[in-house]
């Protein structure tokens, strides 16, 4: 059986896809108990009888998590159910101490929404949202022995710190009509969700840490004959690729699955409805458990929790707190800042938009703010392998730094040194300029002395200048800059040289 390229697969088949995104909320505590919701603590130190599922422990919903779920639902254009409830999803796996996960089933809090997704070329694609519901995260397994993977492991170790952390799961309706742009739409959809949860400040939205995780469903169906309605063609069997956890991986997983399924179908073989594991290293998927045998979760209403019935007043109040849709905000900022398409796209991809916005708000010109974040700071973040926002420098620092440049206190070169000091934890830009003595030498007498010294050292250059070869002054400027360790204002130095040589600039 020959593997097809994604493009070949898309020429022969019509793709239908769906995405489930899990968003980990950034509440202070877990969904149903007061244990801290914080990444990176010692194992099993953020656990209690409730999230360990000890007998008699009773869960109580976290009001902030409910609020976050409703705000997210409203941002996705969902209706908010007047009465929703939790359900138990029963299955045995050691990452769940209770042997069931508290989720929502027949009455999710948010349902029937739609989200406009803007593609790179500006085309808008509308994705239907089936539901967004609340649930709890599971603990973390570490497989020991064997190869370290689950197959052949001798035993597993479980840390329940993450067990019970609040999640919102967003489920799309089947998405049709994207054709060859399916991978692009899928990527843009998840990117938009990530941007929305960050703008709402309900999650840190960091895919690399698993705060936003995606499962990708894909099926292929024959293309309708010319003049026939594509929507009348029944869906094919789908695969569900689990835990695709970067934007690039989402595109790659769709490319891989489309190619794989097209190869099977063209060879007359069936596509099996199953979950598949994503392998980042090889860009491929392998089968997990098959759906029919595993997916009997025997959901039933959670008797320990009462229904969630948000008042209409509260919902409307929360609607009033929603931030601008990220795509609209981008269009507005691009206009206000006068950025090119490339500037804007680079800033978005580098996660620099809000940093630039905050720097502008702190008083810097948009182009200056962009220059720092996308230049020096982007390079530093890259070298240190951290996100821009993790650098020990704030938008206010950057605005202050640029302010010092604008005021002529330091030049660009000194500003880079000052920034180095800020990144090294030496204090604010102003403090670093003072402590490192970085100010531009604007004291004319000091500059005059330096110029005189340089002219005396190179009498031939002085003669040339006096001969009218004004460009020869560059050598003296260079010497003075060197002598002042770059702290001189080059323009002023040049004026002094010409003055000393008795030549008018």
């Amino acid at each position, binding site marked *: 059986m020959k593997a097809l390229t994604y493009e070949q697969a898309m020429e022969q088949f019509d793709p239908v896809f769906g995405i489930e995104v899990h968003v980990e909320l950034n509440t202070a505590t877990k969904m149903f108990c007061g244990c801290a919701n914080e990444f990176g603590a*010692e194992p099993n130190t953020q656990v209690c009888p409730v999230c360990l599922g000890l007998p008699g422990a009773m869960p109580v919903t976290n009001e902030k998590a409910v609020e976050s779920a409703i705000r997210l639902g409203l941002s996705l254009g969902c209706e908010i159910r007047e009465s929703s409830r939790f359900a138990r999803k029963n299955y045995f796996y050691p990452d769940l101490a209770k042997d069931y996960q508290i989720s929502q089933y027949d009455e999710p809090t948010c349902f029937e929404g739609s989200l406009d997704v803007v593609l790179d070329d500006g085309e808008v694609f509308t994705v239907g949202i089936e539901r967004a519901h609340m649930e709890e995260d599971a603990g973390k397994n570490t497989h020991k022995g064997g190869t370290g993977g689950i197959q052949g492991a001798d035993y597993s170790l*479980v840390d329940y710190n993450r067990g019970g952390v609040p999640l919102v799961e967003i489920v799309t309706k089947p998405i049709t009509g994207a054709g060859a742009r399916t991978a692009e739409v899928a990527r843009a959809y998840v990117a938009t969700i990530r941007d929305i949860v960050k703008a709402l400040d309900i999650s840190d939205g960091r895919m690399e840490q698993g705060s936003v995780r995606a499962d990708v469903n894909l099926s292929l169906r024959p293309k309708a004959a010319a003049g026939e309605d594509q929507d009348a063609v029944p869906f094919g069997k789908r695969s569900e690729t689990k835990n695709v956890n970067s934007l690039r991986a989402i595109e790659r997983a769709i490319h891989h699955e489309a190619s794989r399924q097209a190869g099977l179908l063209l060879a007359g073989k069936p596509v099996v409805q199953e979950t598949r594991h994503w392998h980042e290293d090889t860009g491929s998927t392998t089968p997990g458990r098959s759906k029919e045998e595993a997916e009997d979760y025997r959901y039933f209403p959670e008797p320990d929790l009462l229904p969630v019935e948000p008042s209409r007043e509260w919902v409307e109040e929360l609607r009033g707190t929603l931030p601008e849709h990220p795509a609209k905000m981008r269009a507005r900022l691009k206009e206000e800042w006068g950025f090119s398409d490339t500037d804007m796209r680079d800033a978005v991809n580098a996660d620099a938009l809000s940093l630039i916005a905050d720097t502008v708000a702190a008083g810097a010109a948009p182009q200056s703010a962009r220059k720092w974040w996308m230049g020096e700071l982007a390079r530093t973040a890259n070298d240190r392998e951290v996100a821009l926002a993790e650098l020990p420098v704030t938008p206010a620092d950057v605005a202050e730094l640029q302010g010092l440049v604008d005021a002529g206190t330091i030049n660009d070169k000194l500003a880079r040194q000052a920034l180095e000091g800020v990144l090294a934890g030496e204090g604010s830009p102003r403090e670093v300029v003072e402590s490192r003595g970085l100010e531009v030498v604007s004291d004319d007498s000091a500059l005059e002395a330096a110029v005189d010294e340089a002219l005396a050292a190179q009498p031939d250059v002085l003669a040339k200048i006096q001969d009218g070869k004004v460009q020869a002054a560059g050598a003296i400027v260079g010497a003075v800059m060197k002598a002042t360790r770059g702290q001189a204002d080059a323009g002023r130095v040049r004026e002094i040289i010409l003055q000393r040589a008795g030549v008018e600039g």
Partner: protein
Amino acid sequence: MGEIDTNRRGVAATRLLPMSSLERADVARLAALARIDMTDEDLDRLSGQLAAIVDSVAKVAEVAGQDVPATSHPIPMSNVHRADEVRPSLAQDAALSGAPEAEDGRFRVPQILGEEA
């Protein structure tokens, strides 16, 4: 065993189907899902007993008219929430004290076969 019917107004109801349909195969499947080992004799005996229990419960559905909404909570209460404030957790030792085996501050469990991570 049940059927979910959801409409867009946010009203959902789980209604039991007539339950004379509980068969031996259903009991065997439930036992497997619940990880309970059952002998053939267990299955024969329990499918009869469970069918009787389910049939008795189903009588409730017969008495409830259309005017009685399906409910999962008998007490008319809702919105019992907790403020998002951190409370002390258990110490690691205490958390692991009931574990048959522990290692590196984690619960140690037997190898997991036939299922996914």
